[in-house]
C-alpha cells in the first residue's frame, strides 16, 4: 500500500475479543461480523487498489444502535470507519486494521414520501436509484445521478456530495438535500434541517454534505424531489480538434443554454466505448460531445436547433440528433459504459477526477498527452464538459512491475495540473485516501488546519474515519492553540474614519 494510514493501536487490537463481545451486546445476532472470510467483502470499496480487513464489522439497524456503538467506541478510544454501499472511488470507506467498520446497509427503508412538500425522508442505506423509483409513479425523481446510482446509497451520496451527468443543471447532492439525522462520535443524536428550504443557524447540513464520513454517521436523510422533465433529446457531435469541441461548449453556455448534460470524450475513450457497445460513435474524430436538452418538448426542440447551429459554427464534422428515446439512450450507452469499456482494452485503469475551468480544457488535454509520453502509459479522457469535471482513465497493467506506481504518479501529476490551471483536485469522487497526500498542492497548512478545527467541533478525539482527507493529523488541543501575534496595538497605516 503506497499510502500511510494512522498507526494501529495495539492496545485496541489486544482487546479485540472483548470489543466484539461488547458490540454483540449492542447489535445481536448476525449484525456483528468477525470472521476473516466474511469480512473480506468489506476490505475494500470502489478504489480496489487498496485493501485492508477491518478489526470487526458491525451492521446496526437502528439509530439507537449506531449511537451506542459510537458512544462505546468513543469511550474505549476505538476508531470507526462508516460505510454505505462501498462504491467510493477515493477509498473513503477503506477499513482500518484497528477500526470498527460501521456498515449502514440495513438502513434500507424509505420513511416518508411527502409529495405536497416535494421531499422524501429516507434511511441512508437506500440506493440513489431506489428513491427515484419510489416516486416515479407520480412523475417525480431525485435529480443527482452518479453513474453508480443502481448501487450507491443516499447516505454515501451525502457523505461524498455525489454529482452525476445532470448536476450542471440540477446541482450536486448538497443542492438537493434538506436535512438529516446524524449521530456524532460521542453517540449524540442530532436532527438538522427538515422539510423547509433553509435551516436555522449555521448551515450544518451544508458542511456535513461532502465531509466524507469524518464528521458524523448519517442515519436519515431528507431529500427534495423534482418533477421529471416532459422530454429529453440529445445531440452527438464530433469534432476534428479538441479545441473546437471546447469552443462549442463555451458558446453553448455563452448563449445562455444550460443543457441537462454535456459530456465530452476524447479519441481513445470514443474508440474503447464504440468497440464495447457499438453506439455508432464516429471513429475519425478527436472529440465527441453528447449534449442533452431536457424540458417541455417545445423548448427542447428549439434548443436542439440552437445548439446544432452553434455546433456547425464551431466546425463540427458530424452531428446526429436523437429522434427517439431508443436513439437517445444509444448515444448515452457508450458514455455510460466508458469505464468498463476502458477496462476491456487495458488490464487495469485508474480513474481520476479533477475539475478545471472549462476554458482550460485544450491545455489540460495537451498536458495529459505530454504526461502520458513521460510515464509511457495510455490515457482515455471522459469529461463532464459543462462543469469542467475531467475523468482521465489511466491505463496500466498491475502485473507489470512498476506500472501501478507510474500510473499513480501520472494521476497525481494530472491533478496537480488541474490545480495549476485554476481547478481543484476532485470534482465529485472525494479526497478519501486517493488524493489525501495531494491536499497540500491545493491548500496551505493554514487552510487545512482550519478544516481540521472544524472536524474537532464534531469529533474531538479524531476517531471517526481517521486517515482520510487530511495528510497530517493534528491533535485538537494543538489546533485550537492561539498564537498571539507580536501584540501590535496600533495600525499606523490603516485609514481611520
Amino acid at each position, binding site marked *: 500500500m503506497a499510502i500511510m494510514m494512522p498507526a494501529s493501536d495495539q492496545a485496541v487490537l489486544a482487546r479485540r475479543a472483548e470489543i466484539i463481545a461488547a458490540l454483540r451486546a449492542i447489535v445481536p445476532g448476525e449484525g456483528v461480523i468477525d470472521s476473516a472470510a466474511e469480512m473480506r467483502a468489506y476490505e475494500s470499496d470502489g478504489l480496489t487498489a487498496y485493501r485492508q480487513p477491518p478489526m470487526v464489522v458491525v451492521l446496526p439497524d437502528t439509530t439507537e444502535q449506531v449511537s451506542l456503538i459510537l458512544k462505546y467506541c468513543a469511550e474505549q478510544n476505538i476508531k470507526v470507519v462508516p460505510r454505505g454501499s462501498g462504491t467510493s472511488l477515493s477509498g473513503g470507506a477503506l477499513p482500518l486494521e484497528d477500526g470498527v467498520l460501521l456498515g449502514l446497509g440495513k438502513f434500507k427503508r424509505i420513511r416518508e414520501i411527502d409529495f405536497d*412538500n416535494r421531499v422524501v425522508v429516507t434511511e441512508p442505506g437506500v440506493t440513489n436509484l431506489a428513491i427515484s423509483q419510489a416516486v416515479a409513479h407520480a412523475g417525480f425523481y431525485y435529480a443527482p445521478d452518479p453513474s453508480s446510482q443502481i448501487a450507491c446509497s443516499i447516505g454515501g451520496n451525502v457523505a461524498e456530495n455525489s454529482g452525476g451527468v445532470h448536476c450542471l443543471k440540477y446541482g450536486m447532492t448538497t443542492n438537493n438535500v434538506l436535512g438529516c439525522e446524524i449521530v456524532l462520535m460521542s453517540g449524540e443524536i442530532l436532527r438538522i434541517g427538515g*422539510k423547509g*428550504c433553509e435551516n436555522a443557524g449555521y448551515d450544518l447540513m451544508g458542511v456535513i454534505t461532502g465531509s466524507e464520513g469524518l464528521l458524523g454517521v448519517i442515519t436519515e436523510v431528507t431529500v427534495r424531489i423534482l418533477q421529471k422533465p416532459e422530454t429529453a433529446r440529445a445531440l452527438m457531435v464530433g469534432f476534428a480538434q479538441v479545441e473546437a469541441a471546447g469552443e462549442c461548449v463555451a458558446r453553448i453556455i455563452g448563449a445562455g443554454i444550460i443543457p441537462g448534460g454535456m459530456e465530452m470524450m476524447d479519441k481513445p475513450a470514443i474508440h474503447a466505448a464504440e468497440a464495447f457497445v457499438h453506439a455508432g460513435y464516429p471513429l475519425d474524430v478527436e472529440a465527441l460531445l453528447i449534449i442533452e436538452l431536457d424540458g417541455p418538448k417545445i423548448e427542447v426542440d428549439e434548443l436542439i436547433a440552437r445548439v446544432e447551429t452553434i455546433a456547425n459554427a464551431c466546425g463540427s464534422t458530424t452531428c446526429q440528433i436523437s429522434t427517439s428515446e431508443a436513439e437517445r439512450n444509444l448515444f448515452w450507452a457508450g458514455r455510460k459504459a466508458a469505464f468498463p469499456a476502458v477496462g476491456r482494452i487495458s488490464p487495469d485503469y485508474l480513474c481520476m477526477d479533477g475539475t478545471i*475551468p472549462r476554458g482550460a480544457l485544450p491545455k489540460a488535454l495537451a498536458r495529459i498527452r505530454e504526461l502520458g509520453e513521460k510515464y509511457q502509459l495510455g490515457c482515455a479522457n471522459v469529461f463532464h464538459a459543462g462543469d469542467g469535471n475531467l475523468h482521465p482513465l489511466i491505463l496500466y497493467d498491475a502485473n507489470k512491475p512498476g506500472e501501478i506506481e507510474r500510473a499513480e504518479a501520472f494521476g497525481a501529476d494530472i491533478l496537480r495540473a488541474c490545480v495549476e490551471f485554476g481547478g481543484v483536485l476532485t470534482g465529485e469522487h472525494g479526497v478519501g485516501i486517493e488524493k489525501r497526500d495531494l491536499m497540500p498542492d491545493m491548500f496551505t497548512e493554514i487552510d487545512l488546519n482550519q478544516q481540521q478545527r472544524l472536524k474537532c467541533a464534531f469529533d474531538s478525539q479524531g476517531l471517526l474515519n481517521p486517515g482520510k482527507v487530511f495528510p497530517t493529523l493534528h491533535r485538537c488541543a494543538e489546533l485550537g492553540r492561539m498564537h498571539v*501575534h507580536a501584540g501590535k496595538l496600533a495600525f499606523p497605516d490603516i485609514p481611520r474614519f
Partner: protein
Amino acid sequence: MLFVLNLDTGSLVDTLKVRDAKDVEEVVRAAIANEQPLEIIGHGSKRGIGHAMATNAVLDLSALNAVTSYEPNELIVTLQAGAPLADVLALIDAKNQQFAFEPMDTAPLLGTPALGTIGGMIAAGLAGPRRIRAGGARDHLLGAHAVSGFGDSFKTGGKVVKNVTGYDLCKLLAGSWGTLSVMTEVTLKVMPKPEAERTLLLRGLDDAAANKAMTAALGSPYDVSAAAHLPKSTFRTKTEGLGDLASDGESRTMLRLEGITSSAAHRAGSLRDLLAPFGAATLIEDAPSAALWATIRDVLPFAAGGALGAWPVWRIVCPPASGAALGTQLAGETGGEVIYDWGGGLIWAALPPKADAHAPAVRARAAAVGGHAMLIRAAEDVRRDVDVFHPQAPGIAALSERVRASFDPKTVLNRGRLRRGVGA
C-alpha cells in the same frame, strides 16, 4: 483599551477601513491580543438586523471593492467582499447573467439607504423567490478567502462549479452574519438570465386555497420558478411595484415561469389549465412581471416607509405545504399581516407593535410545523429582550457554538450579533 477614542476624529466609534487581506489579518490579530471584539461591516446596510454588539471597533471592508475576475463563459465571478452589490449586478447584467438566487434588497424593509456589498449579501444569505428552484446564496458561493478569528487568512472551495475537495466551508460562511470569519474575496456562480418570464395571477383565493394552488403548480412538470401569495388585506395600503394590481381589493396568487420565450409561454398555458379549478388566471409578461417579483422579493408591502413601517417583521421558514395554516393562524391571533413566498415555505409576517413582538406565539407556531422564525425588523429595545434568531435545540446549539469557536475561539468577530446577551 484600544479603539475607544479615535484621536483624529474625536469619534467614539473607531472605524478601520482595511485595504487588503493583510490589513484584515492585522486588525483581527490586534483584536485578539487586546480582547477587543470587532463589528464587521461592508456598507453597513444590514446593521439593524441581529442583536446589538458591545463594541465600538468597526472593521470596514468597503474599500476592498474590486472585481478580481469575471468570466461569463465559465459562469463565475470573483469579487472582493466589499464590492458594491449594485455595481456587480450591473456588471453581470451587461452579459445577460444574474445571481440565480435573487438576493433580497433589505433597504426598503429596513428603511436604510440603498446600499450593500457582496460580502453582506453572502453573510446574510437572504435569497428571493427563486430560492425554491435555484437554491440560496449557499448554493452559489463556490469559493472564498477569509480571515478567521485566529487572525489567519485561509481559503476554501475554488473557482469551478464542481468541487468536493475538503470540507465545504463556503456553506458555513453563507448566512453566518460575519460571526465565523471575515470574507475578503469570494467566487460566485452566475447563471444566464431567462429570455422571458410569464406570471400567472389567480385572484380571490384565501390562504388555504392559495397554498393548494401553489403546491399543485410546484408539483407540476412546468418548472415553476416562483410561487407567492398576497392575501387581500395586504392590499389595504398602496405598495410601490404592485401598481393598480389590487384595485379590486382581492388577494393575488402568483406563479412565475421562466425560460426561452416559446417555452415560458407554452408552460404558462399548460399551468393555467392545471390551475383552472382555482379560477381563471391572468397573464403578466416580462417587465411588469419582474417588477411584481421584486416587490415580493423585497417585501415592499411591509416597507419601512409604508403604512406598516413601524411594525416588527418576522421571516418564517417552514415546510411549504404548512404555510397557509401557520400564516392564517398567526395573522388571526395577532391582528397582523402575512405574505407567502416559496410556495408557502417562506412567510413574511408584519405584526402589530408589542414589547415582545409576539415572539412566543410566532416561535411556538413555527416550531410546531418544523419551521423557524427570525425577527428581521424590530426596534432596538425589542431586540434587547427578544431573540432575533430562532433558538435552537440544545444539541444543535452546542454543536453550532463549537463550530463557531473552531473559527473564532476568542469571539472577536461580531460578538453577540446572533445571540442575545453575549455582546453585553
